[in-house]
């Protein structure tokens, strides 16, 4: 693979080779286990087996009764690491109060092509995630627990082996089922997950009811991202103050990020919330812009990104967000509009096609962006695109149209100079070398939603 051409996955499966590369971005702090990385081992990229896991982290700290962990998680300030940054304790509290027995699902569906952090975590530290699942199940009195991950024999086999290892050790109170997620961008959306596990296509549903009210098989369902569960398992062991030893007061803790450098390097790191973006992606003259928040996120000019930290306090006012920790530095010699158009085309194809505005609007927005990416574009393309953007926002069952429009609008802002070049028949990269990763093939079969 040539750096920068970035379709790192083979056809058929999106990610045959779980990525192992990870670095730490925080000086180790005194005391054990104070420093970073917390979720990954300090060295080595191979899977951590149960014995090594237990010798590093001590026994699984069951609390003996439901609900106990909720105030602890509230004090820790842990938020969901799947992208939405919703307070974890609130979901647990809502499900714990339900009248019927809830279902608990660890969400490892990482449909975002630019993100590797969940598959890396599941590959390297499966027992932290499985610990978190057990503790979440105890907290909400669940007897039905699943781990939802994309089809990938190597990873799923390894997870099944980890589950068997724990069964042999008598560690788990509730058996864990590994459930296939289809290779779609939206497969991990909570209501799509609930549909899939209920035996239907993995497509988003209209809310209300929310998944925590009525999810899998109509039962209250607690869905947490796998990284969230790993943090939960550590907070249960070491407490809220330990957790707050990293991050900022408002956004505590560490998180996993997938970094795409302008030179084509791509790796997963664990870093503190509040880390300057310039410490994560190289922002020299070779970088023109940074995509933060993945393909539902927003572009930031490199000069602006250099002033910001990895926090919603900084990124939300700049029109972006932390999301699931994808940061991509676009090289100076690429066309930001052509890149955005290519990804938008993909996002349009990944619409579930259920909601009229998304089904109609996204392909039109993608086509208009293709026009803007071409030499001497029709000047009506931008005005059409802005009208369609307004028509799709807030009108889907899920946030796919909203996220896509956020991404497109940010490109029109940040790459204004590139658009001006196009009106003169010029472009920063007439060769249109692709940079942002996309799956080799876009699944188009109805069956691919199952």
């Amino acid at each position: 693979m040539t750096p920068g051409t970035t379709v790192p996955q083979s056809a058929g499966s999106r990610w045959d080779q779980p990525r192992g590369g990870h670095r730490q971005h925080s000086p180790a702090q005194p005391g054990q286990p104070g420093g970073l990385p917390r979720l990954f081992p300090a060295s080595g990229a191979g899977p951590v087996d149960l014995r090594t896991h237990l010798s590093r982290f001590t026994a699984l700290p069951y609390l003996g009764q439901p609900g106990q962990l909720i105030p602890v998680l509230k004090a820790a300030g842990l938020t969901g690491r799947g992208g939405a940054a919703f307070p974890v304790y609130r979901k647990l509290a809502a499900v714990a109060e339900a009248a019927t027995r809830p279902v608990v699902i660890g969400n490892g569906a990482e449909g975002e092509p630019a993100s590797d952090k969940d598959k890396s975590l599941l590959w390297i530290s499966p027992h932290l995630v499985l610990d978190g699942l057990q503790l979440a199940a105890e907290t909400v009195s669940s007897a039905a627990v699943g781990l939802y991950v994309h089809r990938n024999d190597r990873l799923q086999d390894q997870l099944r082996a980890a589950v068997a290892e724990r069964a042999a050790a008598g560690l788990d109170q509730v058996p864990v089922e590994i459930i296939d997620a289809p290779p779609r961008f939206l497969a991990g959306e909570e209501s799509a997950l609930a549909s899939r596990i209920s035996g239907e296509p993995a497509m988003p549903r209209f809310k209300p009811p929310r998944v925590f009210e009525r999810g899998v098989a109509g039962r209250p369902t607690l869905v947490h991202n796998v990284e969230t569960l790993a943090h939960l398992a550590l907070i249960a062991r070491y407490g809220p103050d330990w957790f707050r030893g990293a991050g900022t007061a408002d956004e505590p803790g560490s998180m996993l990020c997938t970094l795409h450098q302008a030179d084509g390097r791509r790796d997963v790191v664990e870093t503190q919330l509040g880390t300057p973006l310039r410490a994560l992606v190289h922002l020299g003259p070779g970088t023109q812009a940074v995509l933060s928040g993945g393909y539902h996120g927003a572009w930031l000019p490199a000069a602006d990104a250099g002033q910001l930290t990895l926090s919603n306090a900084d990124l939300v006012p700049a029109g972006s967000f932390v999301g699931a920790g994808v940061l991509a530095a676009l090289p100076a010699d690429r066309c930001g509009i052509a890149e955005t158009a290519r990804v938008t085309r993909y996002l349009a194809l990944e619409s579930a096609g259920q909601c009229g505005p998304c089904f109609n609007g996204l392909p039109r927005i993608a086509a208009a962006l293709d026009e803007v990416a071409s030499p001497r574009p029709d000047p009506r393309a931008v005005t059409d695109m802005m009208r369609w953007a307004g028509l799709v926002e807030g009108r889907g069952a899920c946030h796919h149209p909203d996220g896509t429009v956020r991404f497109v609008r940010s490109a029109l802002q940040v790459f204004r100079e590139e658009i001006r070049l196009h009106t003169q028949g010029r472009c920063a990269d007439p060769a249109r070398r692709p940079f942002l990763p996309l799956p080799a093939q876009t699944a188009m079969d109805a069956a691919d939603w199952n």
Partner: protein
Amino acid sequence: MRKELRVDPTACSGHGLCAELLPELITLDEWGYPIIAPGPVPRALDKHVRRAVTDCPVLALKLLPAASR
């Protein structure tokens, strides 16, 4: 409690009947899908709103407690 009108976009197939029955609150976009005026339903329109909800051929129009999203 005041209610708000919402469309389940996964159920809506763009018949457009709702916009004919309730033009005060519903217009159609350029593809024929309803755009609903935001906010609680005015009391004066309660009867028309209920009619639009029950007459939607695919029952995609919902009267829900305000701010249920």
